């Protein structure tokens, strides 16, 4: 269904202390790919033919695999459709989603590092089972008795 010649955008989100968005931009220029690049506060947005964008995205991720996260983006880089300046100011809903996810990225990096090292965390069900009504009744009776 997807045509390799479709034009798409991808958002490259970087959270790293030793790789900067500008390093990624240089890498893209070196690759001589026929794509548009825009630097942003969280990384880059790239746009071009699907096959090219995918190729470049893969190369970029390989620079620092566990600290670079990528998703497709609907809106082209610099589009006035989503720009605050031309759309009445105020962040659009997707930005808030991005804010929340961005804050969690260090955790995911940690998890990916573990996978790379071949470690497996102990997967246990973190939700405790519901209190039974009998048990709850016992607790209430005990608490009431104690407070008397």
């Amino acid at each position: 269904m997807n045509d390799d010649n479709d034009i798409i955008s991808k958002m490259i989100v970087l959270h790293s202390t030793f790789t900067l968005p500008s390093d990624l931009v240089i890498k893209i220029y070196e690759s001589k790919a026929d794509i548009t690049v825009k630097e942003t506060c969280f990384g880059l947005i790239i746009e071009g033919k699907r096959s090219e964008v995918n190729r470049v995205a893969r190369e970029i991720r390989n620079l620092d695999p566990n600290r670079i996260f990528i998703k497709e983006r609907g809106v082209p880089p610099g589009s006035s459709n989503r720009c605050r300046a031309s759309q009445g100011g105020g962040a659009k809903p997707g930005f808030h989603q991005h804010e929340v996810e961005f804050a969690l990225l260090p955790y995911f990096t940690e998890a990916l590092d573990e996978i790379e090292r071949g470690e497996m965390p102990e997967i246990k069900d973190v939700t405790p089972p519901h209190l039974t009504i009998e048990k709850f009744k016992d607790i209430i009776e005990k608490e009431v008795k104690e407070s008397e």
Partner: protein
Amino acid sequence: MVKVFIYPSNSLILSDLVDRFGHEPLAMMQEIGKKIRTAGLDSPPINITPEDPKLGLKYAAVEVPSGVRGRMSLLGPLLEEAEAGIIVREPDIAFGCMGCARTNELINFLVRAKKVPLLELDYPNTEDEAKIFVHKIREFLDGLSGAQSGKGDE
């Protein structure tokens, strides 16, 4: 490679993990991208026109609000393509195209009703939960036929 419907559909981390572990994420952004790049449509900001909620009637009746039907007109076709799904339960991050609880209820149901391989899990809030989250997703994706773990973006 398996087409994996993700919920929330616009999540960076879900989209990334599915792709990273060798499958194709089915996400809202690609549908919005098509809309925005369709010449002749002039309905900023995301080029959904009043025609789209009518197309959404395929998934929800006219008594369902137009915002739900408009979203369904984008998400419905993705659901039809889905060969597997990952649902994050009660994410507090679902804004924008995932900002409507009624739409979210409907798409979660439709993914479950499809009876495709499905992983449901809670959104992580701590480091430990995040690790488990990633491992569970990886395990699930590796178990899908045709996985090409570690390649990504193909």
